[in-house]
């Protein structure tokens, strides 16, 4: 009973916390809400008339939505990048910020589910794909696996993050026996969501570009580049705008780990390119379409090379200790690697997988305004979820937001 009452208080106090803020906070939230409004308007048209408002067609039947989905699964998986050293090696400076990784994962997963929902042709039949309620083609369909993996991972992160925050709020130390197993479970789970998502594409004999054994390893490698990049920037923002103390040491440690994953990511990309181009079988057309253009179609070429270039420069910036420990070059590196992976694991993965199509046709796909609008709405939703969660988490981490320190009026009311 006591716990339930306390938890209710925690929820109510959190609510109170997120509705008050300074002008910058209100401005930011208003901006996100406006973007979401735009997304809803764009989506309403699509809901009414169907996916014809997108530029996807039978030849390229997945596009911007699924590209973003794939990228964001990577982001969600990368949360473990922080959890591993924090809990496994008991590395103090990262431990405090591990919770941020979990919150980031939750937000990314919310966006993932949003992108899946807007991509399906019959959102009214969404319940068909829900475990227990619908009729899941398990274990045959990798999409069924993905539904289960993503939702479990979301639940897991949600439980752990809420529990940790709640403990801090009630000024109690968390129960190790409860948190540790869950955290350790989250490590293989994070790997599995990304692996399952990779397998979703990987297992299709009809699409040679995806049908490569190193697809899943490439997914993991790139996720462990882009996810931490976001966190690094976020940590810097947080320690500027709040009293949260994040040691330089922690940031540089993450950056160092990233240098390795970035190098590995580049290596895998090169391995794939070598195999395709040197073998030069008929299946080379897909990677050709991506990097060199095919039969007069060059739509993806500039993006593909931009991705490679950004990845290379970022790798060098993170590899050299001097540039890694310089804030300007570090942040440039973060932005570059983020952009690189966003291209590579978004459109750079989906579009060449489907172009040329199974009968050799090249359909030039570019996202429509509707797709861009809907996508920005979903990104805004994700950022909003993240902002609101941070609004609670940061004071908790600072020790400002505890049950003992509740404002007098709410204490009286309770």
């Amino acid at each position, binding site marked *: 009973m006591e716990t339930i009452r306390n938890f209710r208080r925690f929820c109510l106090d959190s609510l109170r916390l997120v509705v008050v803020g300074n002008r910058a906070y209100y401005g930011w939230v208003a901006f996100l809400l406006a973007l979401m409004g735009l997304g809803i308007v764009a989506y309403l048209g699509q809901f009414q*008339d*169907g*996916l*014809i408002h*997108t530029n*996807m*067609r*039978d*030849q390229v*039947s*997945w596009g911007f939505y699924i590209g973003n989905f794939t990228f964001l699964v990577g982001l969600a998986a990368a949360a473990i990048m922080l959890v591993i050293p924090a809990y496994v090696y008991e590395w103090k400076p990262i431990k405090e910020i591990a919770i941020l990784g979990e919150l980031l994962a939750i937000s990314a997963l919310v966006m993932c589910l949003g992108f*899946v929902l807007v*991509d*399906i*042709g*019959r959102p*009214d*039949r*969404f*319940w*068909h*794909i829900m475990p*227990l*309620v*619908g*009729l*899941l*083609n398990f274990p*045959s*369909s*990798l*999409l*069924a696996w993905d*539904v289960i993996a993503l939702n479990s991972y979301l639940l897991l992160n949600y439980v752990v993050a809420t529990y940790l925050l709640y403990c801090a709020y009630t000024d109690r130390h968390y129960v190790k026996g409860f948190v540790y197993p869950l955290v350790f479970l989250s490590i293989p789970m994070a790997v599995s969501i990304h692996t399952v998502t990779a397998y*979703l*594409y990987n*297992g*299709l*004999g*009809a*699409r040679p570009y995806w049908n490569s054994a190193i697809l899943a390893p490439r997914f993991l490698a790139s996720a462990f580049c882009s996810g931490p990049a976001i966190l690094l920037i976020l940590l810097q923002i947080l320690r500027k705008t709040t009293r949260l103390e994040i040691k330089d040491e922690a940031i540089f440690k993450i950056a160092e780990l990233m240098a390795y994953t970035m190098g590995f990511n580049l290596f895998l990309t090169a391995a794939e390119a070598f195999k395709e181009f040197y073998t030069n079988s*008929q299946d080379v*057309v897909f990677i050709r379409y991506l990097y060199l253009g095919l039969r007069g179609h060059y739509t993806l070429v500039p993006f593909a090379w931009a991705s490679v270039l950004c990845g290379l420069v970022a790798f060098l910036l993170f590899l050299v200790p001097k540039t890694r420990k310089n804030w300007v070059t570090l942040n440039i590196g973060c932005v570059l690697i983020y952009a690189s992976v966003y291209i590579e694991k978004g459109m750079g993965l989906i579009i060449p*997988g*489907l172009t*040329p*199509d*199974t*009968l*050799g*046709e090249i359909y030039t796909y570019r996202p429509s305004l509707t797709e861009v609008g809907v996508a920005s709405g979903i990104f805004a939703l994700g950022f909003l979820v993240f902002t609101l969660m941070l609004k609670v988490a940061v004071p908790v981490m600072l020790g400002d937001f505890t049950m003992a320190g509740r404002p007098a009026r709410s204490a009286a009311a309770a």
Partner: protein
Amino acid sequence: MSEAPKVPAAPPADDESQGVSRRSFLHTAGCAAVAAALTGCGHLSTEEFLQRNFRELDKKELGEIIARLEKEYTAKFHKKVTVAATPPMPGVVFGYALDLSRCIGCRRCVYACVKENNQSRIPQIQWIRVLQMDKEEGVSLLHADPYYDPPLVPQEGHFYMPVQCHQCKNPPCVKVCPVKATWQEPDGITVVDYNWCIGCRYCMAACPYGARRFNWGEPHLPPEEINPVTEYLGNRPRPKGVVEKCTFCIQRTRKGRYPACVEICPTGSRKFGNLLDPGSEIRYVIENKRVFLFKEELNTQPKFFYFYGV
């Protein structure tokens, strides 16, 4: 059985108790409320929202659904439209063979198919795609042109290769569908439940023959052009947001007729029959002609064979 009283609307659960419990869950979970909200948009009835997968329906439920659909279609197209659920014939597995040496690329099959199977006219949906290829290159997708449009066919130096669903014996589209909305029937035809498909298009990514079509928009079919004799798993009018594909004209072939494309072909390039009948023409072709399977290496095991008759 014990759950039936909780759900007055549900018919007696004889075999599929799993489905009924799911259904009662839906009710208790208040999904009916959601359905009612969606019905408010005027597009969807509660029954349609809660309808289960074709293969989980018992006779009575199917009967009700068919009656509902017939009413809906008849009102929409201003003429009597029938929807049948003809079962497969025992001892029959259908096979198809196409003579590449005879096909002239006139696309009559494409249009006969559209007419027979009630494909959307706007946006245009066609289940058969005819590829024009270079004789010098052979069967090569790098040199395939689906949009050829000369005044006269066949064109010098070219041959034509129609592609449609190969009714794979090992169909990747069925394997990947997350909700079992598409499956292979005992007579070898892969069908789609248009009322269960969620429109994720995973099957389109998985099909090596580009055989599946998506209803990107609301399909439009002029009432005067509808073929009113329809099959539940075949040519009945489709809603938007779902996938469709060639069914070997299930509404004809399960009643012993030829598919529309076979009948219309002016050169006799298209052969169709029962693979299990040793005396059938299709068996003769497979046993005596030079036959090849398209993308054989993918092990989809098509029941659609290309051959060179002359």
